[in-house]
């Protein structure tokens, strides 16, 4: 057990730093698309130290204080409950605790804690951001779960390790190719889950300055930024495991996740923003239908 | 004899039926009451001929006598009531 804990700490450390760098890259891409030069790739580190360096920090109450902790626990937990690299002890994490469903549900641990913390600040913008986030999330869930269901039926398992194992042996075994419909549904859902345009109304920097985290600063910000580094990575690891054959080496994992992270970014730079009800309707239409088709496909053709 | 009896009874019956219709239709209350009394009276004759003298007696006394009498009393009282109202 002790060995697992040490491994976990190392894995989290690696992923955090990788996440900071990727975020830097993404910001640069956004800048380039907007014909700006943008920040240096290591900008995230600068921000973190700056936030940490603030001499005072305030709190609005206990939940406010705990909110970022919940948030980061959610991010790290999500990462730690799944095998990031297939067959590598260092990155197998605590995946023995539960299967795919645990991951799906655990995503909300951070969301909920953060929502509660932000709400306690008493800032209306936080609350508005939270309601938007929750509302959008409900719709994003559906196509995503449909895709997961398709995968689970296809591989007859909810165990992520098992799913990865079945995708080994050549990229044609990836779910991407064996079940493109489910993959498509999931990738569309990913757009919503990543909170980038056109589904970034939750943060909506122009209207409700950055949404839920409005009131957060200093070391809270450190936690939130760290979460922003690791949480999307964890999600893309999940997608990688489900649809892109997983990874057998650390490098492969890093590359695949980077590519996956670029997908919402590429969509994001080229689309304007949806309102909440629009995105809800959208998710319950196109991706959901694709997801259902995916299940039908698995059910009738792969079984 | 028997034929005569039948003809008489038939006549009586017709009279009674006419009285009954009169009693029902007549606008004049006293006339109606009298017609009804007449029916009872004639009915008692019928009873007699139908070999029921006791019924005949009762019908004559109660149906023709008492009932008619009672109707007239009530008629007068109600007319008094209506009369008071007009004043």
């Amino acid at each position, binding site marked *: 057990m002790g060995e697992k804990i040490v491994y976990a700490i190392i894995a989290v450390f690696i992923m955090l730093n990788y996440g900071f760098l990727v975020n830097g890259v993404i910001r640069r891409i956004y800048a380039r698309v907007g014909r700006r030069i943008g920040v240096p790739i290591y900008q995230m580190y600068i921000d973190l130290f700056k936030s940490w360096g603030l001499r005072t920090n305030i709190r609005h109450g206990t939940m406010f204080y705990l909110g970022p902790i919940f948030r980061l626990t959610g991010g790290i937990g999500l990462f730690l409950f799944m095998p990031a690299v297939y067959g590598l002890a260092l990155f197998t994490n605590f995946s023995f605790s539960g299967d795919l469903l645990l991951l799906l549900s655990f995503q909300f641990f951070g969301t909920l804690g953060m929502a509660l913390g932000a709400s306690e600040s008493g800032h209306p913008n936080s609350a508005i951001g939270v309601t938007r986030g929750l509302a959008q999330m409900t719709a994003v869930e559906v196509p995503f779960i449909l895709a997961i269901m398709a995968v689970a039926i296809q591989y007859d398992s909810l165990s992520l390790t098992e799913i990865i194992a079945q995708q080994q042996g050549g990229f044609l075994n990836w779910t991407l190719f064996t079940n493109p419909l489910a993959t498509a549904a999931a990738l569309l859902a990913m757009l919503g889950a990543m909170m980038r345009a056109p589904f970034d109304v939750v943060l909506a920097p122009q209207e409700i300055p950055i949404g839920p985290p409005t009131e957060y600063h200093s070391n809270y910000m450190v936690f939130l930024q760290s979460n922003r580094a690791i949480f999307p990575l964890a999600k893309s690891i999940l997608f990688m495991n489900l649809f892109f054959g997983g990874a057998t080496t650390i490098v492969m994992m890093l590359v695949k996740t980077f590519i996956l992270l670029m997908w919402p970014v590429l969509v994001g730079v080229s689309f304007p923003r949806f309102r909440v009800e629009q995105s809800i309707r959208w998710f319950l239409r196109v991706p959901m239908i694709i997801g259902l088709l995916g299940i039908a496909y698995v059910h009738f053709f792969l079984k | 004899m028997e034929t005569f009896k039948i003809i008489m009874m038939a006549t009586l019956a017709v009279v009674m039926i006419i009285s009954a219709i009169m009693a029902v239709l007549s606008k004049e209350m006293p006339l109606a009451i009298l017609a009804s009394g007449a029916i*009872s009276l004639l009915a008692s004759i019928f009873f007699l001929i139908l070999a029921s003298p006791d019924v005949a007696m009762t019908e004559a006394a109660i149906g023709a006598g008492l009932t008619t009498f009672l109707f007239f009393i009530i008629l007068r009282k109600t007319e008094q009531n209506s009369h008071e109202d007009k004043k």
Partner: protein
Amino acid sequence: MNLTIDKIALLLGMSLMLIGLWGGFTQKNLLKIILSFSIFDTGLNILIVALGYLPGRTAPIIDGSAVTPENLALVAIDPVPQALVLTAIVIGFGTTALLLAYALKLNQHKKSLDINQFTDLKW
């Protein structure tokens, strides 16, 4: 058609009953309605007596000559229906009297004998 006394009586009774009912259903004056009912009663009584009539027999009164206790069942008419009718007449009178009392009471209140005036209670 072979008319006999009891047939005439039967027809008469029925006619009176029908006329009585007709009057009771159509007349609007309370007294007329009561009157019609008493005609109906009379008709009913005639009907019953007529039903019990056996041609050629005498009244069920033991007079010692024609009717004796021994031949009562052969010579006389069954006395029971007559007793019944007797009772019915008395009871009918009671009912009529009570109805008239009601008519009076109702008349005292509304100064009218029109049955349509007494429909406050409905539904």
